[in-house]
Each structure stands twice: as structure tokens, then as C-alpha cells.
């Protein structure tokens, strides 16, 4: 795509040039829409280019210069997207920040990025910035889009977006040629955006991307999935998140498709139906919420509708994914599927706002098998991808027709992946970050001397050549026979069963894998009630042989799954027990974000671990618990231990 460009004279390799190219070539097509006062307002590419020009000139009039950073805070709004482009036109760097961050969190980023200029959405954000002004007096200019509630604010730092535009028009008139000149001075190797990583470990780090890198990543995506100017997306995920920046900004700039901004975060699902995007991205949590809404409404539907729905969902489960992947299906099923498409799947996709959807992606967390199968079976091309903020999310994607539940697909064009000795996935990608802002130490730690980014994730390539991510590399251990042991991978597989709330696997430097299981009281309780099985409470339920049988079935299913994968065949769960109490953050067994603190649990329940590995059939234990009111007590229980059947890997069985 290296056409010569009238402004730069060279190729179109910066975001401002891309924008101007669209304005010239498809100036009358819709670039962005926003629902305002109940009506979808749209702007063409030519109008957007004009707005960006005015805004850039306004910022220049206010003293914003090359290499300065511009904070952008708010919901997905056209004007905020234009702010990205305006900053880039001036050779500056947009720094989007999470709109729901509290003032203190903002202070760190503002200070770290030495921000003097900010464009924000409304009073809420202005209030937060004014709150931290005494601690961070360097913030000199705050521009706000929505003036509501701000009429009586008199702080000298404040200026409305509309006033900024007026100043921009004035500046543009007085300085002809300024805009063209400044745009032509932007180089592909300049930093185009700075995205702060969430910082679950330590302080947030500013990830700096270059125009060249981010555009290369976006271009790769666009070519891979064949996006073009007729595609539509809904931008509703936080602008500070790399995913939204890639989908709603970079890819839109490269492919020239239309971005739609919802009216408010509460209306996003409704707006989704009105727009009917052709391309959609959501983390698994959102797909789950959608499914739950559908299921709840189905339960309220009339008996005939409910019957139809369940019958045809059965058909879809049987053959839906195969039909999508173009695999052979018995003619009767194919016929039933066509009927189902007419009566159930089509209307259902319409309700979900997915009638026109060509491609949907999910990523960022493991997706449950039922969820994944549901969407694919009703004809939604849901695929997974893998990437980080540091790699512009350009690492792996599942190609059409080759989507699998537990892999993240294959390396995208131009990406090189190698698996280090400890199982860590290392990546060389066109979308590689330039550096962490002002953190040469962190940059050196994450990029190897030969140019690979160290993801910190452990994974391997399966027999089809697809990448499987199994765990954080630091959590991965080895079994006594030398094969890898990825506890989280196994635990996730177990937790996808509704009956299992939490699981803890042991196996590092041991000859087999053993597991603690926490049952889900509600799901197992319901299950027991349906079979007329009386129980007195959690403790009673956990010791029932029927419940053990139920868990055994789940575990053996996971084992059969693991057996299919050579690298993980030895990680099958050989023995397990059901814990007599729920793991709880109050007892320090979980973190506040509900992650298991593995070593603490192993220590606390050492006798149980010992019993698992010494072949005993039960074990007595007394555990101290903290009640919510601060009192302490002990629970005593005699816990049974059961063996689980393990299967042989097909290659070994032969």
C-alpha cells in the first residue's frame, strides 16, 4: 500500500496522512457516528479531516507543540477520537486514560507523562483534574466537550472545546500552510500513542508505540480479515485500552470503515441492535452477559417458543459449528439447521444485534466452552485472538473456519514466535512497542537483545500448529517426569463446569497431579434438590458420595481432554478431594480479585496435600476460619479422597 502522497511526497505511513487520504478518496463516506439526543449524527471523512485540522490548529494556538503529551479522558466520543488525530498531526502524543479511574490514579499517569494539556469529556472528569491540581500544578490547560454543570467554573485552566475550535479556525486563517507543514513533519518512527498498562504488578507503565508499528499491526489485521470501508464497528470499550485503540482508531484509519459511538454506556446494547455492526470485539464477560440476558428472557417466554428454542438449540449444538467450519454433516441435520435458522437462530442474532456480523473476536481471558459453542453454533463467527498492549494485539488470530476453543490461533503474517526453555512465549511482531516511557530498565527486561518481546505467558504449539496459552510463565512448573505442569490451565478447565467454583492443582516436582475442589453451593445445591437429595449445609454436601461422583465425572472429562494433547497428557488429575470450606479472601486463601494464593493454600492444608500423595483414602483436618464479624472458629471434617481415571494419550496408547 505504498502509494505516493501529495503532502509527504512519500508513502502514507502516519495516522494524519491516512486521515487526509480518506478525506480525499472517500470524503463523502461516513467516518464516524454518534447517537445524540436520540438521533444518530454522522460525520464524513472530509468533515472529520476538517474537524481535526481545526482542533490541531486550536491546540497549536494554545501552545501545544511537537513531543508534548495530550491526556484524553472520557467515554467513546467522536470529539475525543479526533483529539487523538489532532495531537498526532502536531507531532504530539495522545495519552488516553481510563475514564473511571479515581483522581489519585490519574495523578500518577499525569505526573509520569508530564502532561500539561488534557481534553476531557465532561464535568465529572474536570472535577477530578481540578481535585489533583494542587498536587500537580503543571497541568495548564483542560479542554472539555460537554459544558453541562461547568458554566460557573472560573478556573483559568478551563476552556470549552467549542472555544478551542474557534481559536483553531482563527489560527488556521492567520497561518496558512501551517497545518500542511506540521503534518508533513510527522515521521513514521515518531511515537503515535502512549497506552498505560493497568499495572496489576507495580506501577502502571506507559507503552510507547510508533506510527509505523501500529499502522503495520492494523494493516496486518485488516488484510487478514478483509475489512474494508463498508464495515461498521461499535466503539464501547474504554478508549485507554489497547483493544479499542486498535479496533476503533487504528484499523478504522487503515481500512476506512465506520465507527459508531453509543449514546451512553447503559444504552450500548440497544445501540448495538440499531447499528448492527459487521465486526465486533468483546471480552468473554460481555458475551456471557448477553447470553444470560437471552436465557432469562427465554425462561419468561411462552411454552411453544421455549420448546422451539430448546429443540433447535439442540440441533445447533449437534451440527452448528461443523456447518460453519464447512465440515460434513448428515443431510437431516442440515435440513433441520436451515429450519432452525429461519425460526430461531436468525431472530436470535437479530435480538443480539449480530445479524450483519461477519467477524467477532474475543480475547483477554479464557472463554468457557458452552459460551463459545453457543455463539458459533447459531452462526456467529466468533474467534479468539492473542496479544498484549506491548504488541499492539498483533500476535495470533484464528483464521476463518479453523477456530478452536482452547487455542488462540496461529501467528499472523510477519509475526515470529518462539517458545523459551521455561515455556514462555516470546514474540517478534511488526506492532512491537518502541519502549516503556522513561523506563529503560523495564524496556530492557521485556525485550530480549535479539528483539523478541517476552510476554510472560507460558504456551506451546499444538499438533495443528495453533498456539495454546496455558498460564503465566512464573506459575508453570514441571512434573517429576519432566513434562510441563500448568496449574491454571487445568484449574480453568475444571472451573468451566458450573458445579466447580474453585480448584487448586498440585504437581510441581511431583509424580502426579492432584486437586482440591471447591463446589459451587448454588449449582450443586440445585442439582441435589432436583434429585430429592436432602442435605443440611455446605459441609454435608461436600462429603456426599453422590457429589464426589459428580465431581469425578467432571474431572474425568477434563482428563480425557488433556489426554488429547501430548504436552499435557501427564498433567491429568489422578487424585482429588472436595474441600470442606469455601476458599475465602477473608482467610487469605484468595486475593481480593479472587485469584488462588497457591502456596498459601498448600501450606495451610499441608496434611491434605500429604494425604493426597501418600495414597490415604481419607484425612481428618481442623481448619480455623474467620467469620465476617471478626470472630474465629474452627471447622473439623473428615475428608474423603478419591482416585480419578486417567486416559492415555492416543499416540502412547497405540
Amino acid at each position, binding site marked *: 500500500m505504498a502509494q505516493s502522497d501529495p503532502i509527504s511526497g512519500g508513502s502514507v505511513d502516519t495516522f494524519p496522512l491516512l486521515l487526509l487520504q480518506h478525506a480525499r478518496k472517500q470524503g463523502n463516506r461516513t467516518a464516524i457516528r454518534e447517537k*445524540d*439526543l436520540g438521533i444518530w449524527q454522522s460525520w464524513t471523512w472530509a468533515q472529520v479531516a476538517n474537524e481535526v485540522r481545526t482542533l490541531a490548529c486550536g491546540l497549536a494556538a494554545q501552545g501545544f507543540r511537537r513531543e508534548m503529551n495530550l491526556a484524553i479522558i472520557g467515554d467513546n466520543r467522536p470529539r475525543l477520537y479526533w483529539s487523538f488525530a489532532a495531537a498526532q498531526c502536531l507531532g504530539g502524543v495522545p495519552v488516553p486514560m481510563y475514564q473511571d479511574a479515581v483522581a489519585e490514579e490519574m495523578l500518577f499517569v499525569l505526573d509520569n507523562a508530564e502532561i500539561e494539556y488534557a481534553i476531557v469529556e465532561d464535568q465529572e472528569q474536570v472535577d477530578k483534574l481540578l481535585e489533583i491540581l494542587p498536587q500537580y500544578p503543571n497541568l495548564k490547560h483542560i479542554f472539555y466537550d460537554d459544558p453541562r454543570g461547568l458554566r*460557573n467554573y472560573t478556573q483559568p485552566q478551563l476552556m470549552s472545546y467549542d472555544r478551542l475550535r474557534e481559536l483553531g479556525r482563527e489560527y488556521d486563517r492567520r497561518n496558512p500552510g501551517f497545518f500542511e507543514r506540521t503534518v508533513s513533519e510527522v515521521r513514521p518512527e515518531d511515537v503515535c500513542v502512549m497506552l498505560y498498562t493497568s499495572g496489576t504488578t507495580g506501577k502502571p507503565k506507559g507503552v510507547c508505540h510508533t506510527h509505523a508499528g501500529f499502522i503495520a499491526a492494523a494493516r496486518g489485521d485488516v488484510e487478514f480479515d478483509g475489512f474494508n470501508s463498508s464495515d461498521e464497528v461499535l466503539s464501547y470499550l474504554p478508549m485507554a485500552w489497547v483493544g479499542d485503540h486498535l479496533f476503533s482508531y487504528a484499523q478504522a484509519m487503515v481500512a476506512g470503515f465506520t465507527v459508531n459511538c453509543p*449514546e*451512553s454506556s*447503559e444504552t450500548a446494547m440497544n445501540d448495538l441492535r440499531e447499528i448492527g455492526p459487521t465486526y465486533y470485539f468483546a471480552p468473554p464477560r460481555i458475551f456471557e452477559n448477553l447470553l444470560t440476558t437471552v436465557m432469562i428472557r427465554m425462561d419468561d417466554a411462552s411454552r411453544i417458543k421455549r420448546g422451539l428454542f430448546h429443540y433447535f438449540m439442540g440441533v445447533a449444538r449437534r451440527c452448528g459449528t461443523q456447518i460453519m467450519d464447512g465440515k460434513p454433516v448428515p443431510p437431516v441435520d442440515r435440513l433441520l439447521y436451515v429450519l432452525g435458522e429461519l425460526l430461531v437462530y436468525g431472530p436470535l442474532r437479530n435480538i443480539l444485534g449480530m445479524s450483519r456480523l461477519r467477524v467477532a473476536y474475543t480475547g483477554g481471558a479464557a472463554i468457557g466452552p458452552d459460551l463459545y459453542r453457543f455463539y458459533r453454533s447459531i452462526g456467529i463467527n466468533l474467534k479468539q485472538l492473542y496479544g498484549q498492549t506491548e504488541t499492539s494485539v498483533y500476535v495470533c488470530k484464528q483464521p476463518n473456519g479453523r477456530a478452536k476453543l482452547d487455542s488462540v490461533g496461529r501467528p499472523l503474517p510477519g509475526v515470529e514466535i518462539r517458545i523459551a526453555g521455561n515455556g514462555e512465549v516470546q514474540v517478534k511482531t511488526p506492532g512491537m512497542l518502541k519502549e516503556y516511557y522513561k523506563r529503560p530498565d523495564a524496556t530492557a527486561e521485556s525485550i530480549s537483545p535479539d528483539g523478541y518481546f517476552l510476554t510472560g505467558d507460558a504456551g506451546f504449539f499444538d499438533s495443528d500448529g495453533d498456539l495454546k496459552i496455558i498460564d503465566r510463565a512464573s506459575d508453570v512448573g514441571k512434573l517429576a517426569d519432566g513434562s510441563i505442569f500448568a496449574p491454571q490451565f487445568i484449574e480453568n478447565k475444571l472451573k468451566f463446569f458450573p458445579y466447580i467454583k474453585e480448584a487448586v492443582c498440585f504437581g510441581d516436582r511431583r509424580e502426579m497431579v492432584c486437586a482440591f475442589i471447591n463446589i459451587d453451593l448454588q449449582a450443586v445445591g440445585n442439582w441435589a434438590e432436583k434429585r430429592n437429595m436432602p442435605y443440611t449445609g455446605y459441609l454435608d454436601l461436600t462429603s456426599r458420595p453422590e457429589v464426589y461422583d459428580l465431581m469425578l465425572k467432571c474431572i474425568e472429562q477434563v482428563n480425557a481432554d488433556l489426554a488429547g494433547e501430548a504436552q499435557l497428557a501427564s498433567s491429568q488429575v489422578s487424585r482429588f478431594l472436595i474441600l470442606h470450606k469455601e476458599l475465602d479472601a477473608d482467610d487469605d486463601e484468595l486475593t481480593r480479585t479472587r485469584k488462588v494464593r497457591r502456596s498459601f493454600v498448600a501450606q495451610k492444608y499441608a496434611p491434605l496435600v500429604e494425604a493426597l500423595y501418600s495414597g490415604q483414602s481419607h484425612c481428618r483436618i481442623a481448619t480455623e476460619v474467620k467469620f465476617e464479624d471478626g470472630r474465629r472458629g474452627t471447622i473439623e471434617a473428615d475428608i474423603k479422597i478419591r482416585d480419578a481415571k486417567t486416559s492415555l494419550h492416543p499416540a502412547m496408547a497405540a
Partner: protein
Amino acid sequence: MTGQRKIGDVMLLVENIALSFGGVRALSDVSFDVREGEIRAIIGPNGAGKSSMLNVINGVYHPQQGNVSFRGEVRRRMDPHRAAAQGIARTFQNIALFKGMTVLDNIMTGRNLKMRSSLIEQAIYIGRNRREEIAHRAKVEEIIDFLQIEHIRKTPVGRLPYGLQKRVELARALAAEPTLLLLDEPMAGMNVEEKQDMCRFILDVNDEFGTTIVLIEHDMGVVMDICDRIVVLDYGRKIGDGTPDEIRNDKAVIDAYLGVSH
């Protein structure tokens, strides 16, 4: 609020009002004024005559004695329809919305008095009426945006939680573009978060549209926080009138609320 809001001249003057239902004296000899642009509260124990007072102001009840003058026009008998035409809107203690209609339609009814076209024109929806309806809808959308209820625009009111219904009622009152807004216990039965939201909206309405507001409220925290001046009623009589600070230290008011033998 950082504002320098302008409180103007007297807008509504209530003089020596007496109202009784048979032998029950609901109000006796109550006088007070409301100034342009202020938020005025009426407080008092149960049965003090607060709602009756609002009903007198917008003409639902006709007092046996006394005058109500609105913008200099003195009137003895008033009916709600004329009150609304003069720019007085209200919300009710027990929500009075059309439960089966959508939020949008409910708010549109607030524009009713501003419609100029005839019933027949409205029925066939052409020409003048069409233009009119579009203009009204635009105004209603502004209010929906203002009160942040976009997500329930098409939801029937009966399906909404109580707090949101209260907000819709406020929206309908605002749709009439009132100069004086009467709110009868706008925060009754709400949780803390809903109350905070409602307080913000009331302050915003006052600030943004310059609407004068008279409200009845039991939550003293709210009243003391957002109101400029307060009238205190007890057994149909006015026992206090002043700024929140004055009322807080008024002996008669403290007695009425803590209860002393009469």
C-alpha cells in the same frame, strides 16, 4: 456548586391562607414568599399541611381565606390547568405517571399545553402538526439527555424501579418548561445513592434553567444542603421561616420535631 446564582424578586406570594375540610383545619393563616431562582423547602411533621399548601399554590384546593399572587397577579380561585399555563409544574408524592406508556410518551404529555395544532390535525399527523411534534420531541430529548435516562427511553414506566419513575416524573414536569416547579417529596423511598442523584438533578435544573423550585422533603440532610430558605409548618400553622442555619437553631422548630406537650 461554585456558582453565583441570582436570586431575584418575589415571584410567588402566599398571604394569610386558611384551608379547611369540614371541621378539619388543614392550614390556618399561612404566609410566605418565594423569590425568583431560589430553592425553597416546606418541611414539617406528618399532617402539618405541606401537601395541602402545594395544592393551594397550583389550584387543586381553593382556600377559604387568603390570596396567592404569582408574578404580581393576585388570585383567589385558581385551577390547575391555568396554573400550568402560567408556568407552574409539579410532581406528586405518589407517582402519577401513565404506567403502560413508555418513558418517552409520558414526557411528551408534559408538552401537551404547548401544542397548538388541533385534535384532528394531531390524529392525521400532517403539515403543521408534524413540524410541531418534531420540535417537541427535540425538546423532550434534551430533557432525557439532561436527566440521563436515555437507556429507558422506550421502556414502559410500569416496569421501571421506583427511583427511576421519580426521575421520569421530574422529566415530565420539566417538559412543560416551568418557571416554578413544585416537588412533593421527590426523594421519598429512595436509597442514599438515588437521593444523591436526585439532589444533583434538582440543583442542576435550578442552575441550568434558572427554574424556581419549591419542594417538600422529610430528609433534613437534603433540605439543609440544597435549599436556600425553608418554611416550617406544624398543625397547619407556620412556625418558622428562614435560612437553613436559622431554622436549625429555631426553638419552635426543634420543639415541633422533638415533640413537646401542646
